[in-house]
């Protein structure tokens, strides 16, 4: 029997941790060449939300993988309900009630929602799957989250946000006593996040202990009871959230104080228009989008997930087709049919998903930097001049402060922030004049974010036009000169950042008082 916690009084002595569901003591984990965790102690109590904060590489994910049985610690003990135990696999930890919601989605795209939720736990009738029970149980899980998703649809047809919610539903269906959430809100909209938080509050009341990992520190205040900070594999602090502040947490994460989250803007836009988009339309995706980008300007694209911001950028870049509209570079009308054309005209698109379509992960730092401009480092017959390639790589590694052992390091082994700098290097080496930068700081730790912001400012100062697509409103407010706000495939308005507020941007982004999009007429119907 477990003693119940009446109120969340914080006790200083870990040994008297009443209601500790899960307690880790002196956990050490070593990988070849890296000490990932160094004597970390940590506990989760019944009915608390315990945030774990730290930069990338601080050891958060490794710690969670030890809790869920994916890794075994080299030293230290794990106590669950007061008893020392070891989990050799996720199945073992799930069996006793520890569930993990992964940051990267772990769903099977070609199975239905219901089949995914109960994968390997299918209700059975003899040897066969009890399909009725499967659907019924799945419906119940989805209803609990207030999700309007049919249990029978295939997961691959869902949006990323919906998939994330299914993942959450799956974890809840395990009736976990300890629930680990790794960046659960990174792809959720505001309203979905609110829904998730309501569920978290409900789970708290039911006595579930929740470990919550998030880069979005501003959302912690709504749900978190205690917060543990890790840095370089070591435990830095554990406090009641009420006794600390986001600034303090950030300072502890990076081990130094950041004066501000955003650097001072040194650049300012010029009046010359670099790029003009007029009436861009892609049927069923976005409609009649027009905007101007000036030399030296950072133009924000704000809006909810699925508002069409990324799609507009991709279409201008030639990665997806345009149905109507024109793009002008200065006065010249561009005919861009493929990314090759766009690159030739000095456009660059930095994808929101670096690993999927930004970098060749198996190739080296130098090879990635020169990939978009091989001609600059090769002779007339197409032979690569390695001395020039190395020199170019060295120049950008130095200029952008890319932390890598050498220019021949395989890119997969770099941290997220350094990978992002690498993608930027690639486009700078191409002499790009217009950068479409999709979610430039997604999944990047606080220190590296600051460096990326500084870089954006420098680029603008050199006269480059930057379009920054971001779902982080503070980032839009902190870095841009103007904001184009999107809602359901339309560019609703363009605001001057200095004269607007987060509330106003949200107002437009959420589509209040906006005429509905006209039905797309498919042209003359055939009889």
């Amino acid at each position, binding site marked *: 029997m477990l003693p119940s916690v009446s109120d969340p009084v914080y006790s200083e002595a870990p040994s008297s941790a009443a209601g500790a569901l899960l307690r880790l003591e002196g956990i050490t984990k070593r*990988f070849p060449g890296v000490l990932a965790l160094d004597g970390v102690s940590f506990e989760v109590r019944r009915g608390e939300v315990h945030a774990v904060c730290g930069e990338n590489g601080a050891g958060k994910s490794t710690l969670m993988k030890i809790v869920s049985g994916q890794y075994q610690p080299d030293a230290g003990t794990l106590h669950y309900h007061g008893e020392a135990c070891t989990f050799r696999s996720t199945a073992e930890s799930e069996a006793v009630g520890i569930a993990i919601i992964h940051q990267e989605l772990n769903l099977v795209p070609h199975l239905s929602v219901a089949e995914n939720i109960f994968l390997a736990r299918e209700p059975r009738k003899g040897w066969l799957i009890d399909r009725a029970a499967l659907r019924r149980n799945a419906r119940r899980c989805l209803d609990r989250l207030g999700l309007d998703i049919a249990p029978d649809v295939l997961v691959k047809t869902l949006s990323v946000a919906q998939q994330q919610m299914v993942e959450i539903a799956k974890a809840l269906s395990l009736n976990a006593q300890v629930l680990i959430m790794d960046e659960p809100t990174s792809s959720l909209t505001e309203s979905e996040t609110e829904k998730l938080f309501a569920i978290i509050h409900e789970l708290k009341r039911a006595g579930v202990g929740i470990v919550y990992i998030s880069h979005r520190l501003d959302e912690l205040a709504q749900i978190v009871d205690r917060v543990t900070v890790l840095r370089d594999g070591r435990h830095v602090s554990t406090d009641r959230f009420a006794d600390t502040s986001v600034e303090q947490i950030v300072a502890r994460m990076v081990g130094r104080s950041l004066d501000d989250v955003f650097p001072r803007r040194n650049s300012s836009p010029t009046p010359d228009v670099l790029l003009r988009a007029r009436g861009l339309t892609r049927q069923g995706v976005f409609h009649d989008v027009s905007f101007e980008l000036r030399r030296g300007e950072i133009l924000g694209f704000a809006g909810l997930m699925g508002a069409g911001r990324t799609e507009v950028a991709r279409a201008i*870049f030639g990665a997806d087709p345009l149905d109507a509209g024109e793009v002008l570079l200065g006065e010249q009308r561009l005919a861009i049919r493929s990314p090759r054309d766009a690159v030739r005209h000095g456009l660059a698109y930095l994808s929101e998903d670096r690993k999927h379509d930004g970098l060749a992960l198996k190739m080296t730092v130098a*090879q990635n930097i020169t990939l978009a401009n091989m001609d600059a480092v090769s002779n007339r017959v197409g*032979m690569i001049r390695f001395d020039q390639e190395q020199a170019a790589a060295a120049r950008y590694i130095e200029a952008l402060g890319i932390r890598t052992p050498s220019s021949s390091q395989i890119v997969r082994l770099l941290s997220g922030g350094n990978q992002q700098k690498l993608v930027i290097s690639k486009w700078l080496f191409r002499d790009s004049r217009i950068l479409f930068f999709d979610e430039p700081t997604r999944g990047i730790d606080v220190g590296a974010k600051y460096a990326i912001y500084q870089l954006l400012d420098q680029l603008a100062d050199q006269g480059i036009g930057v379009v920054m697509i971001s779902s982080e409103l503070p980032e839009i407010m902190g870095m841009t000169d103007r904001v184009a706000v999107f809602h359901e495939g339309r560019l609703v308005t363009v605001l001057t950042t200095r004269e607007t507020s987060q509330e106003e941007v949200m107002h437009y982004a959420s589509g209040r008082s906006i005429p509905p999009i006209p039905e797309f007429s498919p042209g003359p119907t055939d009889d």
Partner: protein
Amino acid sequence: MTERQKDLFQKFAALASLLGLVVIFSFTSNAFFTVGNGMTVALQVTSIAYLGIAATCVIITGGIDLSVGAILALAGVVAAMAAKAGVPVPLAMLAGLLVGALCGLINGLCVTALKLPPFIATLGMMLVARGVALQITDAKAIGGLGDSFAELGNGSLWRMVNIGADGFPDVVFVGIPYPVLLMVVLAVAVSILLNRATLGRHLYAVGSNLEAARLSGVNVQRVTLFAYVFSGLLAGLTGCVLMSRLVTAQPSEGLMYELDAIAAAVIGGTSLTGGVGTISGTVIGAFVIGILRNGLNMAGVSAFTQQILIGLVILLAVWIDQMRHRK
């Protein structure tokens, strides 16, 4: 171990096992470690090496080519038929090469324009090319091709022969067979292409991350097309060399050669997921297979047992490769 050390380890492991095989077979048969047998092995390995080099280029882009065995038969048969019809041998062989390249072009277009999975596109070509080869020859071998047709496959460079006092020739040096010479030239040339040319870099980029390559302005279609045309061309070359060596064109020649080619690439560390592979590795892989065959033959091991052993070697090689990539 760093990536680089792991890489060297993998290379070294393949090379070490190759040397290990040589040592073992030298003990099992006295005739194994001789210049003559060395040349025989090299000659036998050439087909696997040509096709392996082609397979490496295709696999680096993340594709696969199952049709090379059939293409080589078709190309060889066409070359032989042309020669038989009175076309000068060099032109006849050129026709064979063109047929190979054409088949490769069709493969490439199926993959790039029709967006068929490479496995399916080349599986179709495998059946079509083989069918055409059997059709046009009535499934009969073409013999009596003459000495000039045999020259490419059987001639040697620097072959030194003394005519003895008794009138019988006395071979001083067996020479370097043309197919072996061709293999060396090809290996060096393609190695340079992959390592030093922008085209080679683009092959790796497409295989490592197609979307990133496309968004970087790489002409993904053209690069992919090149890989398949080149593969077809080398299959055509293999067909010409092989038929010339046998001085007979067999429409059923080259059966399952595509699998040897893929095996050579994989033993040499080429990753089937694309983006990784070297010609030096593939050549080592080709020699591992060739020496296994030759050595086991000389040791009197049956063909069936050989097949089992080669199968196990492939599994072992890929397992080592997986170990290397596991963190």
